[in-house]
């Protein structure tokens, strides 16, 4: 079977190589397996506009490990689409990416979102090493049908949220479907609380040993525990996939997950409309897709053309519509009904990045939080966070 396929395949590859001699080939590195088809469509449209450029989409499992391995060999792809997380920050600080601070297309980008990305790290102060294409947010998702049925409005404050949770519980409805078997599923809520309750310069202070988690995070821990008591009894034996399915089947009024869970929930075909709100002042948002190119591009003109194309409002809208994410443009709103109520936060600049991007992975935040939600020992959680942080910093120095 394989052998029969191999001959024509090799021929194809050779032919493609030959046929491509008049065209410039761009190597486009893309990290998101769910978005492969969307990018294929976008690339096809780009190639129709620019018949002399061929774009090869390169997507691999474990994209972050793969891109690191390629960088070690000094082999940077022509155009990159990456996730806006701590790994992107590290690479930007290492001076791998181009400086876009003078780029004209930047005018259209929401400055608050750009700041979230730049805060992860840049090569030199004031540089812009990536362009945010779209974002994901950490609101609370809710079942509109259940809210209507019990006459509950989406809470705007913490007290309203707790009141709503109590009301659902009294009516025999599970307020939150919790999936704590997967430890990371507590982090979206942790991030929302930490971003709003802890001082904004906490991590700088923690690094300089001016403050500790024990001093700055008691409120975060207390509210986290308060909220998570309104879950279903078997919360520690259910995982993320079960959570998406059960919430879609109407098993709870609310669901503590980011907007990235929406496509998975819709796949289970809920017979209600999914809503989103945040009881906090500022919405935690992360850059879902960053577009960037190497500091010293091999084909500057063609790479730039493709970046221009990807960052054009029409393409961003087409992408975000298919992937249910939020365009990071100043004036462009998502037309997805679930995301609509979150748009004012972007317009007013009331968005902030993920605090846990500043906590080294070796600290094991998610395990500590999971343990805390089981035993409720707040002192132990904060002491462990401080001691793990100190140990990791000592090992790094």
């Amino acid at each position, binding site marked *: 079977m394989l052998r029969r396929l191999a001959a024509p395949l090799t021929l194809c590859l050779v032919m493609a190589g030959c046929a491509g001699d008049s065209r410039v080939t761009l190597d486009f590195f893309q990290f998101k397996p769910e978005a492969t088809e969307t990018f294929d469509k976008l690339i096809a449209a780009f190639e129709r506009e620019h018949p002399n450029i061929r774009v090869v989409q390169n997507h691999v499992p474990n994209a972050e490990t793969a891109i690191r391995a390629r960088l070690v060999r000094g082999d940077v792809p022509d155009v990159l689409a990456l996730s806006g997380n701590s790994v992107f920050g590290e690479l930007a600080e290492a001076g791998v990416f181009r400086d876009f601070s003078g780029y004209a297309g930047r005018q259209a980008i929401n400055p608050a979102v750009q700041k979230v990305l730049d805060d992860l790290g840049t090569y030199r102060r004031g540089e812009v090493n990536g362009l945010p294409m779209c974002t994901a947010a950490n609101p609370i998702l809710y079942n509109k049908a259940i809210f209507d049925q019990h006459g509950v409005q989406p809470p705007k404050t913490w007290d309203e949220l707790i009141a709503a949770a109590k009301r659902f519980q009294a009516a025999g409805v599970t307020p939150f479907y919790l999936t704590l078997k997967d430890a990371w599923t507590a982090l979206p809520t942790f991030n929302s609380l930490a971003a709003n309750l802890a001082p904004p310069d906490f991590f700088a202070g923690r690094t300089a040993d001016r403050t500790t988690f024990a001093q700055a995070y008691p409120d975060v821990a207390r509210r986290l525990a308060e909220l998570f008591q309104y879950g279903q*009894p078997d919360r520690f*034996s259910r995982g993320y996939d079960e959570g998406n399915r059960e919430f879609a089947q109407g098993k709870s009024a609310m669901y503590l997950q980011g907007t990235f869970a929406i496509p998975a929930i819709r796949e289970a075909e809920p017979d209600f409309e999914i809503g989103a709100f945040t009881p906090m002042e500022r919405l935690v948002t992360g850059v879902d897709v960053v577009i960037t190119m190497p500091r010293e591009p091999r084909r500057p003109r063609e790479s730039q053309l493709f970046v221009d194309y990807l960052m054009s409002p029409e393409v961003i809208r087409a992408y975000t519509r298919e992937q249910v994410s939020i365009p990071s443009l100043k004036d462009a709103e998502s037309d997805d009904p679930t995301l609509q109520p979150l748009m004012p936060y972007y317009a007013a600049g009331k968005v902030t990045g993920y605090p846990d991007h500043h906590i080294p992975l070796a600290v094991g935040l998610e395990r500590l939080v999971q343990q805390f939600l089981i035993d409720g020992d707040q002192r132990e959680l904060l002491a462990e966070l401080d001691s793990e942080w100190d*140990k990791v910093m000592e090992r790094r120095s």
Partner: protein
Amino acid sequence: MSRAYYWMVVPAFVLFFLLHTVPVLQGFYYSLTDYPGYGEHAFVGIRNYVNLFKDDRVLEAYLFTFQFAIVATILTNVIALAVAVGLNARIRFQTALRGIYFIPNVLAILIVGYIFNYLFANSVPAIFGGTNLLADPDLAWIGIVIVAVWQAVAFNIVIYLAGLQTIPEDLHEAAMIDGAGRWRRFWSVVFPLIAPFFTVNMVLSAKNFLQVFDHIVALTNGGPGSATTSVSLLIYTGGFQGGEYAYQTANAIVYFVIIVLVSIFQLRILQRREVTM
């Protein structure tokens, strides 16, 4: 000496050296650096090793792994020996039963783990009441022991069966004529004669259980909290996901030495009581 012997030994040695010894030496080198898994690194001497002994998380992982390995090794060998003696007796469907008892060994641990995960989360609470074993930090290790023993018993039965078949029938007959009962015959004839097989099984299962990884990934992923984080899992999560490659490589080197020492110790003790006919 015939050259044929060299043809047999040298290729195996070269392969072993290239694919096993070289990576171990490389790992030892990295354990003396601050290498995060990519990019540049600098030599830091034995700092990683010093830090290991100051890390309570590492100590907890060692404690958990040893407790788990001791309980699982004893249970596996007791159960496997009992089943093997039963399967060696003249019973009906002997061949079919031997085949059935071997099935767990050919199933992938990850798949078995996910099935047991479902059983613990849904079926067991529905039938016997109570909550999910794996969701309780104090009891989760029992769930892992159950799955690990269930899976490991299959292979140990095969080795014990092989051992039982080496015992000549006339020894049984002689013991019976001397008036020995079933228990007496087992303890005084059978068990001493299969001692070499007992040694192999004890050493192999202890070594395998000390390296426990797949079961935990499939069942609890080290949780709840870090209640079931074994040393191997800690090396993997800290080294590859946590970006502390060099530090966890040092941990791996220490653990390798410990496992070798445990195996040598076991062999010494157990071989002392082996008898030869």
